[in-house]
């Protein structure tokens, strides 16, 4: 195997993927217990993308995400505890309990959400990058969205702006082939999404989103290119969501066989096998990751359970900068 060339980083990619997987398994369990409410969109199956892409960003770079963003937030270093508390609706959550699963924010980590309007985050990413370009800061804005967003006007308007103004945005299309129940070929006249970006004059490439190394390397190349000469890049990351769209979806639109087929390409065992093959991981190392992750998640749940609710009297706080706006 040829890893990233850095054994520590190779292991960390595995650890991040395992953290996301176990965190979301726990979240699903808590959802059935009624501890987490609202919509809960799981990322299970797609972990290689968050782990790979975010491993190449620096703390100065920005991340814009969607409602399926637990993985992005965790990989960005937003603490499991503050995300769990957010999903409980507690005051200690990363959005103060106001956002829930779909609206995770952590501006200190330049994690700009958590947008539940499909394609809604894309123009915002363009604006963040515009600010960087104008202020001559060498930063990259990474913008995640699903392939469903490619049908929206906001996607095309943003592609054009980013390319026209040569802005430092890394567009990351997580193509899991379904937008809720609508299969890609039933929503796009041209299903080769990378070519859509290319039509805006933007360098773009399709990437195997189930292969964390391929993702990390493609992201690395793209980020380096953007830093060298600002101008957007586009990656189409082909992946699959193993679970329902959200917790209510009876999955009438795809077959069990198809899901099983993709599960054979699960990015976690695939990467694990390559690390073992290279002698970079043994049973003890694997078990250590599992137990560290379990401890982190357990602590997150305890934190969420014990955290206080925001007082109801604070309902109107932060609608505007000043407090005390009339009801």
């Amino acid at each position, binding site marked *: 195997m040829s890893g990233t060339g850095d054994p520590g980083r190779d292991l960390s990619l595995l650890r991040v993927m395992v953290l996301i997987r176990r965190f979301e398994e726990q979240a699903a369990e808590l959802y059935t217990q009624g501890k987490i409410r609202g919509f809960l969109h799981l990322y299970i199956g797609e972990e290689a993308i968050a782990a790979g892409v975010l491993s190449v960003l620096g703390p100065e770079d920005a991340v814009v995400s969607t409602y399926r963003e637990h993985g992005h937030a965790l990989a960005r270093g937003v603490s499991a505890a503050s995300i769990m508390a957010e999903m409980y*609706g507690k005051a200690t959550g990363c959005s103060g309990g106001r*956002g829930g699963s779909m609206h995770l924010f952590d501006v200190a980590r330049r994690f700009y959400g958590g*947008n539940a309007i499909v394609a809604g985050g894309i123009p915002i990413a363009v604006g963040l990058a515009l600010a960087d370009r104008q202020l001559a800061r060498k930063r990259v804005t990474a913008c995640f969205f699903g392939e469903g*967003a490619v*049908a929206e006007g906001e996607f095309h308007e943003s592609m054009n702006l980013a390319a026209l103004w040569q802005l430092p945005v890394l567009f990351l299309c997580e193509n899991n082939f379904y937008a809720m129940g609508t*299969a890609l070929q039933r929503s796009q006249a041209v299903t080769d999404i990378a070519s859509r970006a290319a039509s805006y004059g933007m360098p773009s490439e399709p990437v195997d989103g189930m292969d964390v190394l391929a993702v990390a390397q493609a992201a690395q190349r793209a980020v380096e290119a953007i830093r060298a000469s600002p101008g957007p890049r586009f990656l189409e990351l082909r992946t699959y969501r193993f679970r329902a769209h959200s917790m209510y979806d009876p999955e009438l639109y795809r077959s069990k066989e198809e899901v099983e087929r993709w599960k054979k390409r699960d990015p976690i065992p695939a990467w694990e096998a390559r690390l073992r093959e290279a002698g970079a991981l043994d049973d003890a190392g694997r078990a250590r990751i599992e137990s560290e992750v379990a401890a982190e998640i357990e602590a997150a749940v305890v934190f969420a359970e014990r955290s206080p609710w925001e007082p109801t009297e604070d309902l*109107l706080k932060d609608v505007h900068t000043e407090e005390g706006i009339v009801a």
Partner: protein
Amino acid sequence: MRVRSTYREALRVALREALRDDPRVLLLGEDVAFYGGAFAVSHGLHEEFGTERVRDTPLSESAFLGAGIGAALGGLHPIVEVMTVNFSLLALDQIVNSAATLRHMSGGQMSVPMVVRMATGGGRQLAAQHSHSLEGWYAHVPGIKVLAPGTVDDARWMLPAALREPDPVFLFENARLYPMEGTYDDAGSPAEIGRAAVRRPGRDVTLIAFGGGLPKTLEAAETLTAHSVDAEVVDLRTLRPLDAETILGSVRRTRRAVIVDEAWRTGSFAAEVAARIAEEGFYDLEAPILRICGAEVPMPYAKHLEDAALPQPHSIVQAVLRTMGRA
């Protein structure tokens, strides 16, 4: 005969009837077919009528709503489903600048017979991008009609009424009501658009509500009997055109008005109703008009905050007791 049904099933019965009776009718929207409808309203209809008449669209609210307008101009009778009112904002241009204007702007040459259905309202912990009640905004716009079914019977009979209209009609389905049980008259006839209904006669105070606010208001009216208050409940049913006559007639009898509206108070539909009463029924009043509205805050995720942000039966009861001079 009165048939027991949920609000959701009643809507589906009406959709099925429309598709069966008129070959020009088609249902257009995101995930209306293969997924089974985001709220399962259209579940199974594509199997019955085919995917040309129950047609999944890509995520492109502006395009498919505009296409609905064009299809209506071209001789079809589209029913466009927008998944939720928050997403309808992506189509606002087509709605306000085209659907609502074409007849008048063309000197009466054009007609846009189109029904737009969408889910509205909060109370499901879906936070600030999935929970708003913007039907009052739409009611601001001349050229469209705005209906807000608050009962199972109206869920059954408003759609056929909307389909008789030569102009665009917007049907706001409060998502909390989908599982609500009730009955409809299976030998009924299309609802009268522009006609409010007295859902509960009473002598002491008029409670005015619509859509998702109606069940809460009826519950409050029941509670008020324990306080020896006999409340009349008027269900607006149609926001545009507004049935001022029924409202004013009721206020003339009870001499007090309390308006319940789940939307934000400032510029709310409740403000319009209050203004009408003040303009035309001022001398009938024995107490100031009161409004019970949503708090002026983007909808928070945490349940206790969301509950506090929305009118509740107990807050309605308190307001009524205030206007009666009992609190």
